[in-house]
């Protein structure tokens, strides 16, 4: 991270329950403007739940979550405006299968931001260029490979001119040979200064771009540290064990 900047996501004493299941336990976390944060941890540790709270796909039960100066909770009137600032890339891409690639990118700006068709199309083509698939504009999602679909999904979020991008295991549903094309786009995005919170097990990517590494287990944040310390000398034993397991090969 370059210098100290303003916090853009502030999580304070956050708790989340699914019925009796305590999914997030007293989570405290701060993400600064322009920061790249990578969250890892075993499955079921609450990583996805946490970032899904950041754009209101899940609601926390207690504690405080402030994003870009707006307090996020179920009754908040600003959620729609906030979602336009916070983009999300899903594990399963979730492209709109009945729309072409270009229409997938244009529908948000046109219907939510009320932009004209020409402006929306110009933006869409710009971001398709940035994810390196301008030639796929008129195809339907099902005609693309998984890696291409995920890059379209990234472009769809970018078209909303978001200030924060959340990635929920963006490469977990991809065939191995397509992972790098998606990670490359994410690295370029990181270099452009976007604030990113990424849930992933791609440790090579984490080493390359992360400013902060977070390790979660059983709904708790166990470790928050810069990558050089995180990978060489993590302070918690649980984190060390986890890293040993996923870095073995």
């Amino acid at each position, binding site marked *: 991270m370059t210098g100290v900047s303003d916090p853009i996501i502030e999580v304070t004493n956050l708790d989340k329950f699914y019925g009796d299941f305590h999914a997030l336990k007293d989570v405290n976390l701060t993400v600064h403007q322009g920061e790249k944060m990578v969250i890892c941890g075993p499955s079921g540790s609450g990583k996805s739940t946490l970032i899904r709270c950041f*754009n*209101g*796909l899940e609601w926390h039960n207690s504690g405080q979550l402030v994003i870009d100066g707006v307090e996020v909770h179920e009754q908040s009137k600003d959620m*729609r*405006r906030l*979602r*336009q600032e*916070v*983009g*999300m890339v*899903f594990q*399963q891409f*979730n*492209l*709109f*299968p*009945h729309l072409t690639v270009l229409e997938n990118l244009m*529908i*948000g700006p046109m*219907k*939510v*931001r009320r932009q004209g068709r020409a402006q929306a199309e110009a933006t869409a083509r710009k971001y398709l260029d940035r994810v390196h698939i301008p030639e796929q504009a008129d195809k*339907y999602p*099902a005609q693309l490979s998984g890696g291409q679909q995920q890059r379209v*999904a990234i472009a*769809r*979020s970018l078209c*909303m001119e978001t200030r924060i991008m959340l990635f929920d295991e963006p490469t977990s549903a991809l065939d191995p040979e397509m992972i790098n094309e998606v990670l490359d786009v994410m690295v370029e995005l990181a270099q452009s200064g976007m604030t990113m919170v990424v849930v992933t097990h791609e440790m090579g990517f984490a080493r390359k771009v992360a400013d902060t590494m977070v390790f979660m287990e059983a709904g708790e944040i166990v470790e928050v540290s810069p990558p050089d310390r995180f990978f060489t000398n993590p302070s918690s034993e649980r984190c060390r064990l986890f890293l040993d397991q996923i870095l073995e090969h």
Partner: protein
Amino acid sequence: MSAPDLSGLRGQPLPQRPAFQRFLSSTGVSVAIYFAVMGLIIYGSFTGAQNMGYNWQWHRVPQFLYSFTDDGFQLGEIFHGLLATIQLSATAFALAVALGLLVALLRLSGLVMGTAVSIGFLELIRNIPLLVLLYLFYYVLGPIFGFDRYWASILTLAVFHSALISEIFRAGINAVDKGQWEAAKSIGMTTGQTYRYIILPQSVRFMLPPMTGEAVHLIKSSAIVSVIAVAELTTIGRNIISDTFMSFEIWFTVAAVYMVVTLILSVGVSYLERRYAVDQ
């Protein structure tokens, strides 16, 4: 169909069905059995009608379908009845779709009263016979709210079929992946925008076949409005019979006309469906 040449194979041949079963299920034999049975049924009805002394007058039927006069080609009474049936059914179907969508959205709204109202409506409609519903609309609600027999028929059909149509909508909407909702939400769409631009266009694919079935069903059940003498195909058929006493010929003709219309509808929609499938 000749037996394949097995001489080059080294494995044991697998056991076959007994020869008599193979004979019965061969194409030639099953076609022959079909024609024999159908022939018997037709012969039986024909001789039965003959024994009743029924006087077949098929040559008098075409004038009710079409005629040539000095003014040229004219559609006959049956066709005017058919047009009335189509108009009645189309209006009722459009209303049924609108009402069905409303009931389905209420059911899916997550509001306690919304769900209760829609389930109450479904159970009420499902458990009243169509004929009784028609009498209710014509003899009770008609005088109260001041609508005539034509609108009583349309409303009866619309309300009756909206119950099933709402279930078709609900199933179609639920068949769309949950991730689509999340994606639409994450780019800031409202619930209304998500339904309109994302969910409903995708549910069409799931809803088209059962909707067609329901449209066919509605056209057929529209015949019931002849009991309150709305001038449609069945009523016209009955009127012609009371003038000409050709009940066998006219009922056969009316049945055939219904069949042609609903078959055209089904074939047309399955063509549409195939076009739609290619786009996805």
